[in-house]
């Protein structure tokens, strides 16, 4: 038994402080992303979910420049971007991707400028890479409480607005007829997604934040059509892939081409993609919900 465990978990896995932090933060991100991901996929807003990760780079690079904690830059920018996207028409089907694209383009343009100033003023060339890809094993433990608090806020929005959000995600006409303020619900949902994505982008990197938001939720929605069950599945898939990814990355210290570990994001993303592919091949006949559209 201990032999098997020893071959799975490389020596020192459970005693390592960075691993503890990575497991904790990764789990929080997986849970929050799983719940919000179901809404994101149902509302056809995958692009917005992905864009927030990139947009938060602007906040990150801007806060480097101002010298404030990146977490406020990340969260603030993406909530602001959620507001702008809503203002210029993310609700309309055709304009949705366009609105997201315009906001993302402008935000990344600003990020280019901020990074240029960052690198010329303070010569932190590594900043681009750190911000883009994140590094799970390099999270400072002091940011963990703030991340936890803001994640709880995002989950709180969903918990308070659960039923109206769900109804307006499935059918905005029906929700409108029931007297639900669809627009307000939409903004609240977008803000919650923005918060969740920017936090996970800060801690686990932009790639993983998109992957954890979309992948488990899309897989879960292929396995079940009930939103509550889908959220549970998405959280489970997200947690398992994240943990496996961390274990594999820790093990890969001893893999070729040696020197250092393979990136966690590579493992987690690959595992998530394989899950989706399996669900895609197992249940290909599932009809696309016409109310959700192509997105």
């Amino acid at each position, binding site marked *: 038994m201990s032999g098997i465990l020893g071959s799975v978990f490389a020596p020192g896995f459970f005693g390592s402080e960075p691993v503890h932090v990575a497991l904790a933060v990764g789990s929080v991100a997986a849970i929050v992303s799983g719940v919000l991901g179901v809404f994101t*996929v149902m509302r*056809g*807003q*995958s*692009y917005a979910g*992905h*864009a927030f990760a990139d947009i938060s780079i602007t906040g990150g690079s801007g806060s480097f420049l101002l010298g404030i904690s990146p977490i406020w830059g990340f969260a603030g920018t993406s909530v602001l971007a959620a507001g702008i996207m809503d203002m*210029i028409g993310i*609700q*309309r*089907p*055709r*304009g*949705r*991707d*366009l609105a*997201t*694209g*315009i906001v993302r*383009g*402008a*935000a*990344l*343009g*600003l990020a*280019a*400028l901020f*990074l*240029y100033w960052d690198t010329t003023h303070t010569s932190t*060339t*590594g900043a*681009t*890479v750190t911000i*883009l*890809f994140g590094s799970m094993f390099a999270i400072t433990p002091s940011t963990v409480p703030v991340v936890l608090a803001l994640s709880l806020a995002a989950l709180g929005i969903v918990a308070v607005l659960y039923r109206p959000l769900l109804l*307006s995600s499935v*059918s*905005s006409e029906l929700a409108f007829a029931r007297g639900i303020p669809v627009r307000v619900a939409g903004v609240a949902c977008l803000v919650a997604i923005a918060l969740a994505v920017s936090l996970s982008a800060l801690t686990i*990197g932009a*790639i993983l934040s*998109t992957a954890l938001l*979309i*992948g488990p939720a*899309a897989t879960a929605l*292929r396995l079940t059509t009930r939103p509550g069950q889908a959220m549970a599945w998405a959280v489970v898939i997200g947690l398992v892939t994240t943990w496996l990814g961390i274990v594999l990355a820790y093990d890969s210290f001893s893999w070729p081409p040696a020197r*250092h570990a393979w*990136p966690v*994001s*590579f493992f*987690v*993303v*690959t595992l998530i*993609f394989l899950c*989706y592919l399996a669900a*895609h091949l197992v249940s290909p006949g599932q009809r*696309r919900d*016409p109310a*959700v559209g*192509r*997105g």
Partner: protein
Amino acid sequence: MFSSFMTNTWTVATIVAVVAGVVGFFVVLRGSAFVADALPTGAFAGAAGASLIGVSTLAGLTVFSLAGALAIGWLGRRSRHDVATALTLVLMLGLGALFLSFSQEYSAEIYSLLFGEVLGISVNEVAPVAALGAVCIVAILVMFRPLMLSSVMPELGEARGVRSYRIEMGFLVVIALATSMALPVVGALLIFSLMIGPPAAARSFTSNPYVALALCVVIAVAAVWTAIAASYASNWPVGFFVGVIGAVCYAAGRGWTAWRGTRAVRAAAERDSGVPAVAC
């Protein structure tokens, strides 16, 4: 600004702007902004892979963007298109992260691949860009009518015998080619902003598709020239100017639509309600 070493920059940027304008027109028409965003972002993982095994960057980019386009087309056929795009994108980025972790000295190059290194284009980069650009334009011209039909009225296109899946695949390949052509010289952000901003603006100014297409190319070229001139003058990254100019173009288009009065807005709303109903 117009000295000899800048000649290549102006040439390449103009070619990229024309191609981005033409391809972008259909990107906006078909509502595939996400794909036009995902392929350039994901393809740069190919550049990282190419530098790792020592082949040319262009080859790596082309392989990755083509593979990405085919994966998005195949996965998106039977499921939500945006989900397929997002997952293909993160898989490509995950591979990119892996390649980058194998080769250490790369962060400056990532920056230039993402945000563009437009002021340092050498003369032997012009020919491949021109060739791939020509391929894109010719492909669009060959597919023009079925592409237009299936973008504007997919049902009518099907009835007329347009194979919308083939057209979709063909169009994805064109986006992939345009991406791999433009990425090494102008960066992922620039090509994406050019594909979105000018067409979105052009569409607001006219409802005639041919006029819109021409207008879109004109705006894209003007945007690129302005961005390069501003970048040259201020020494700020060209990606900043293109991103902001793209957003300004879009805002101008929206402003124009609003200014033309409620009647035009109502007509646009009716046009929008013609497409399948949607949540939110």
